[in-house]
């Protein structure tokens, strides 16, 4: 595998406060292209705020975010999506009013896709949507993609989220607690999919609580505590780190 761009995503001294609470405190790190970076930390350590800042849903008070040499700190969220960063949400938020596969029509209508593939006819998008669903593990030729989204079980909804990201043909996918609410077997079945995504050239940043599975996928881990980076390195090193153990006292590995 060729060495990717070292500075694919660069955060420099990013800070964000809400009222008196510091959610992010001068946070800096870099992500190499085609890496899988895991971000862990307790509740309230700033993980979701970090995702929101990178993807433009929240603007930081100070600091910069650079993606592929371009500064994206102040760009609006939809522009950042169009540049190739896709994200999932912590609480699954599909479009309830639509059938499952129609969820993917929206990203397929975005300017990024129009630019990358040339605007297709209306009918083509339905077929592309169904193909995407198959790619993330929906059974082909079943009625499931046509069911109303609200009736799908949780595991399918998470896969739908991933499909929504993939529809944008992203270079970077940020997942926010993708494994939460899933059974062990459901999580295990997602891992090959995520490995396949990484092998196809996509960079992954995974914010997670389920450490065992994350450590199988990630090549690097960053530990956040109260908005600050307290440890960084390979999974084995993080597991052995005394400081991290202290934060997670009581957590089972």
């Amino acid at each position, binding site marked *: 595998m060729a060495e990717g761009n070292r500075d694919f995503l660069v955060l420099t001294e990013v800070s964000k406060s*809400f*009222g008196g609470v510091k959610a992010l405190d001068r946070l800096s790190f870099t992500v190499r292209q085609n890496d899988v970076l895991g971000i862990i930390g307790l509740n309230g350590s700033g993980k979701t705020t970090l995702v*929101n800042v990178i993807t433009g*849903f*929240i603007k930081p008070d100070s600091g910069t975010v650079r993606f592929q040499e371009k500064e994206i700190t102040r760009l609006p969220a939809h522009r950042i999506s169009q540049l190739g960063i896709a994200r999932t949400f912590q609480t699954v938020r599909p479009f309830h009013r639509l059938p499952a596969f129609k969820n993917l029509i929206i990203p397929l209508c975005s300017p990024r896709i129009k630019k990358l593939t040339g605007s297709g006819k209306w009918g083509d998008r339905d077929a592309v949507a169904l193909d995407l669903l198959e790619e993330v593990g929906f059974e082909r030729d079943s009625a499931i993609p046509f069911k109303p989204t609200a009736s799908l079980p949780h595991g399918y909804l998470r896969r739908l989220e991933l499909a929504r990201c993939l529809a944008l043909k992203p270079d970077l996918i940020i997942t926010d607690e993708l494994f939460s609410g899933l059974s062990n077997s459901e999580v295990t079945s997602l891992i090959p999919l995520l490995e396949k995504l990484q092998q196809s050239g996509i960079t992954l940043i995974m914010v997670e609580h389920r450490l065992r599975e994350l450590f199988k996928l990630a090549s690097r881990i960053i530990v956040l505590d109260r908005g600050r980076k307290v440890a960084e390195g390979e999974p084995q090193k993080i597991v052995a780190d005394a400081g991290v153990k202290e934060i997670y006292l009581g957590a089972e590995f």
Partner: protein
Amino acid sequence: MVLPLLIYGLINGSILALTALGFSLTYGISRVANFAYGALYVLAGFSAWFFLNRLKLSLFLSLLLSILLIGLIGAALYRIALIRVRGMPTSEIIVTFALGTAALEALRFFGFLGSHYTLPAFYSGALPVFGVPVDYQRLFIVILGAVLFLALWIFTHHTKTGLAMRAIAQDEQAAMMAGIDSDFMATLSVGLGAGLAALAAGILLPLSYIATESGSNILVYAIAVCIVGGLESTTGVLVASLLIGYAQMLSVIYLGPHYQMIVALLAILVTLILRPSGIFGKHKELEERV
């Protein structure tokens, strides 16, 4: 000229604060925006009038009964109606708005209009304050406003029920896990809010007369104070009342009586556009706007 303006502005601010307090409390605790608030206020006025003039009860007893009655109606409003649409904010708004409108229009239909219906002041006469004559009712308003704020502050910060209410306001699910019954708290909050509206009616209505038309005005003023000050902050209500109170008074003096409402409406708009969470509001960015 400055001193009378300062004093009248303070009075006007206190009037607004008393008007808005109930609405703020209800929303602050259970996130219920009670759009029937104005109707409850007017109903309180008429019920007090009824107890006073038809049942010939004493003023104190009439007011007390009207507060209890309206408080109960508020609690019933939640228990019977709002509980069914809990968690769907737009349905909550439509239901309370519709019920409030129905009540006000019913009053209008049955002839409760015009300036015939009044409540008497507690004590007639006036007192010079720094050389400016202020009647006892208005004085009482300012004092009562301050006392109520203090009492509410102590209640929400230092009593078990009050703290429970704040817990619900901050994180409903965590509070429920700690054993606090969210529906009971919501019923309590709507009832209390309604009771406070009735209290405000009893004190403020002697200043003019009980008018069905003012039902929607009351709602707008309450919303204005709460939005400008921040929907979850008692300090915000205080500051916003004074700000809007002074602004209203100045515009009425220099521009005309219609501007009292216009100022309130503009305050709502400007705040929602520039800073939706208000001056002291604590909503996180993502919750209030995209």
